[in-house]
């Protein structure tokens, strides 16, 4: 176990870099964070359409969410990797196609999380804003969204955990993220698969477990904040 870490540890962290492309855990993290960052605005648009007044927008958003939820992520990755370059007529880097597939997939999930956050707000909030004479845009972007998003921060962090796990599918289309690197290591060191995949699993575990603990912690903080318990805690 230790030998493998000594020999391939650096590769696990950053891939072939600096002699080749950046890969490994670093690339996994970059892919995940970029995916989440790109997903976020898309998810907000979907959430606004889902909770808004316009019937056609509602129907489109709902159709998108349900369709995407009906397709395995791997199929979306195949579409993005094999079919998309064909359709647009020029090649795209595999890393980008992975990000595109994850963004489409996650937009459906994150959109629903944010929509739930919007629906969970007390009705009075909208009415208070309207009573102040605020229009749709300021009401949405200054009153509704900030609160809704604050309340679903735990859900967003949880989605980051999910994305990190989903990015492992990059290994199927040769994106040199963490899993792919370790598959390469495995084909070099054919006699130690248990150790190699053990290390791989452990790496994901540490990352995702830490993030899910953070999610739980945030959930408690935010639940307390909403019920005003933090104040008591601070005073006590």
């Amino acid at each position, binding site marked *: 176990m230790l030998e493998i870490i000594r020999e391939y540890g650096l590769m696990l962290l950053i891939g072939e870099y600096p002699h080749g492309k950046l890969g490994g855990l670093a690339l996994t993290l970059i892919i995940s964070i970029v995916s989440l960052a790109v997903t976020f605005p898309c998810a907000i648009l979907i959430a606004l359409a889902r909770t808004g007044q316009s019937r056609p927008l509602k129907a489109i958003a709902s159709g998108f969410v349900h369709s995407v939820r009906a397709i395995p992520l791997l199929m979306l990755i195949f579409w993005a990797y094999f079919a998309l370059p064909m359709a647009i007529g020029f090649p795209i880097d595999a890393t980008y196609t992975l990000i595109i597939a994850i963004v489409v997939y996650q937009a459906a999930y994150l959109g629903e999380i944010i929509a739930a956050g919007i629906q969970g707000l007390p009705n009075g909030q909208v009415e208070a804003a309207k009573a102040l004479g605020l229009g749709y845009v300021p009401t949405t972007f200054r009153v509704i969204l900030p609160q809704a998003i604050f309340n679903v921060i735990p859900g967003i962090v949880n989605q980051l955990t999910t994305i990190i796990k989903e990015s492992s599918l990059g290994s199927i289309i040769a994106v040199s993220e963490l899993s792919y690197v370790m598959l390469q290591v495995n084909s070099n060191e054919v006699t130690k698969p248990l150790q190699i*995949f053990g290390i791989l699993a452990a790496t994901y575990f540490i990352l995702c477990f830490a993030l899910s603990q953070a999610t739980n912690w945030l959930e408690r903080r935010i639940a307390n904040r909403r019920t005003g318990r933090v104040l008591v805690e601070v005073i006590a």
Partner: protein
Amino acid sequence: MGYHLDFGKVLQGEYLDLILQGIQTTMVLFVLSWIFGLVLAIILTVVRAVKFRPTQLLVAAFVEYHRNVPMLIQLFVWYFGFAVVLPDAVNEYLNDIGAEIGYAIVALALNKAAYMSEDFRSGMRSIHPAQMEAARSIGLTYLGAMRWVILPQAWRLALPALLGQTLILFKGTSLAAGIGVAELSYQARYIEEQSFRIFEAYGIATAIYMLISFAIMWLSAVLSDRFRLRVK
């Protein structure tokens, strides 16, 4: 461009056979892992309910491993990792009979067991303790109260989450392609490679996935509604 969609090319002869085989393998993966996963989930829930620290910790570790490691890696661990534990002769035999599907079923079932046992547990936890008290004060034994009062509520409360897991499992069977199981997405990829009919191959596979997913979603909605537990 000059690309003309022609589904007929893919929906015939050898390719049609491959697609049908793919559907069959996907369904075998789905149904068997669902059944094994559910049974194991129930066992895990019971074990965890027994107040014995070591076994509780063991179950908790099992659950956390399966929730925090990507499904694909869990498949790799079984497929690449388990093989070295076995003697060569056994491995050869397993490869001959196509053991990938067996590894895939084991990995998928264990993964679902972890998630489903969590769903059961949170179902149990959302039952008010007074229900147990009321059941016992009628004169039911502990097991009687479990059987007739707690569990009938617990599974109803867990049902929507369990159905959600069912859809996730169905889609997750596609990951078995990663260890060479010739299920639907694997066949789509193979047909695409052979025929260069990218849009047709993936289009048909996607349509089949969507069809079955929609059926699962519809059934989930019906069942959730039918068995919803309304508590005042």
